[in-house]
């Protein structure tokens, strides 16, 4: 109940900030443009998912941390009130993550609806992209919260950490993977590679997209490990469970941290 009261206030406050509306508009403009230029087919969905894979982690982490700092007063005010910390934590998290996820979903789905793409395109692909976007939003907002709580007294450090983490996960990590592939290419490195990819949530989401749109190429790969992994339900289920783990662990750690924290 108390969580709901907090959520309601947070949402009102967020809408007043206009920021969230702008965030949703970005997706609306992107999706609209992509559908216009991409002829509403898989190309448009691929472009949308590419942008989603970059933007959501960045915004989720930065804004997750920033939001904690911004609502510090609010948090301190509420902590002295009769409410348990877990409710307060989920109120804060839901107060940000749910509107972010909604902004993405509405911003992306609206152009698909008014252009009629939802009727012509593959519904499974559309749903996959929307679900993935929502999962990524929750996941990276949770990570942002974690950083925010870890460096609660030092905003610069917290935001810096979020930005560097994004850069690492989005670009550098893949660079390391590529380097590893070309260094150890003569050894059977498929399994370690898969493990590396599953360890990075952006790669994880990217591979889920590959499974939907690039399965033809993946199945063209000569190694048995990949084709066994991608060719069966195993690929999808392992990827999904890793995604769930990635969703759960930062949130669980954040909540623990929040409950033990001195304000």
């Amino acid at each position, binding site marked *: 109940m108390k969580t709901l009261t907090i959520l309601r206030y947070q949402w009102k406050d967020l809408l007043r900030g206009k920021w969230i509306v702008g965030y949703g508009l970005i997706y609306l403009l992107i999706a609209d443009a992509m559908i216009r230029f991409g002829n509403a087919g898989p190309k448009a969905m691929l472009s949308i998912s590419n942008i989603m894979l970059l933007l959501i982690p960045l915004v989720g982490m930065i804004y997750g941390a920033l939001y904690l700092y911004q609502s510090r007063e609010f948090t301190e005010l509420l902590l002295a009130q009769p409410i348990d910390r877990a409710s307060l934590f989920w109120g804060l998290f839901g107060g940000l993550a749910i509107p972010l996820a909604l902004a993405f979903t509405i911003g992306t789905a609206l152009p698909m609806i008014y252009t009629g793409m939802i009727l012509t395109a593959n519904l499974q692909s559309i749903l996959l992209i929307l679900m993935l976007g929502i999962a990524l939003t929750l996941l990276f907002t949770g990570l942002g919260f974690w950083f925010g709580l870890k460096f609660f007294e030092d905003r610069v450090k917290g935001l810096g950490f979020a930005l560097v983490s994004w850069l690492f996960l989005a670009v550098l990590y893949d660079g390391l993977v590529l380097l590893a592939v070309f260094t150890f290419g003569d050894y059977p490195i498929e399994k370690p590679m898969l493990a590396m990819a599953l360890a990075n949530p952006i790669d994880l989401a990217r591979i889920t997209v590959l499974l939907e749109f690039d399965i033809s190429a993946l199945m063209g*790969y000569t190694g048995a490990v990949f084709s066994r992994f991608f060719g069966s339900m195993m690929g999808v289920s392992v990827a999904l469970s890793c995604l769930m783990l990635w969703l759960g662990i930062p949130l669980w750690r954040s909540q623990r941290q929040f409950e033990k924290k001195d304000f």
Partner: protein
Amino acid sequence: MRLKIITTILFVGLMLFLQTQKTVATQITVSQDGEITSVQDGINQAQPGDTVFVKEGRYVEYDIRINKRITLLGANNAVIDGDNQGFVVVVEADSTVIKNIEVHNSKAGFMDDYAGIVVEGAHNVRIEGTKLVDNFFGIYLAKSKGTVLKNNHITASRKRETNSGNGIHLWYTKDVEILDNYVAGHRDGLYFEFVEGAFIAGNESENNIRYGIHFMYSDHCRYERNTFRDNGGGVAVMYTSNVEIVDNHFADNWGSSAYGMLLKEINRSQITGNTFTNNSVGLYMEASSRNNVQGNEFIQNGWAVQLMANSTDNKFNKNNFVANSFEVSTNSRMNYSNNFDKNYWSQYEGYDLNRDGVGDVPHRPVRLFSILVEKQPQSLLLLRSLLVDLLDAAEKFMPVLTPETLLDSKPQMEPVL
């Protein structure tokens, strides 16, 4: 008087009518409970031009020889079962017609090409509406001219390449027509070797162990409106000139050596109006020259076109490349006069300021990443990552590893078809 004349006319007419019936053909009926219970007996008793009608039932017989011009006609559910003993039906006479009959279980073996229906050295044979189930080879034509296969349904359920023959097998034939057949579960769905002037249209070939269609040394053939789906290796076309491959559909061929269509040493041929969908490789070209690849659609393939550098002077015009993982890949920095023009590429990132529908900057369909994947296939896992996109963008800006001349200088802004 009048009555007499009328009666006479009627009588004469009746006689004439009966006479004609007799001279046109005699029908010999084979049935489980009749006078003739074996198909071979029926054929033996028939005169050239007669029809042998096989009534409903299962006739366990093999090596049935048709050595005179007859029509073998089956009722519904008339099944000749070879019982894995040998050939089932062997056609030796010209102009034989086989219609509506079911042929099951020829022998399988390595020494002979056992088949459900064999036509060897007979011309102008017509096989129509038959159903072939679990034969080693389905229909086997050798040294035949002017034969027509139509509306046959040919399936097998053997799992290994070694104990499975081809669905429709042609060897040294001329001017054969293969229309609207369905083949599944054989080694190669359709197999052509030393065939000339065949017309192959409206067939469907899927789930075969090796190739949906496999043809070699078969000049001047035309393939039209066929569908090849989910075959082990896709379709292989080799060592042939002057082929027309038009309006076919190549789909769902997945695997490390599966191709929508593989062309090897194919020259001066037309590949137009085909669609390649969801194949690991859409069109693979090796040592093929002077072909015209036009008006095809490549949709969501792993590699839309793999063009080996020993292929020269091919023209790729007005094709649509939509949502493929890789558009074109090659194995060299060299490009010998292959021309890509006026295609639509969904990976094109240029612009069209003068709004004439043609992109203002050329499109380079060979990505750097496709070369990386060629060298180190495991790196495929990095597809669609920001890193790879950045590398590709840098390479497009200043080509170092990709063929400089392989580009489309008139990329279309909208799909062509």
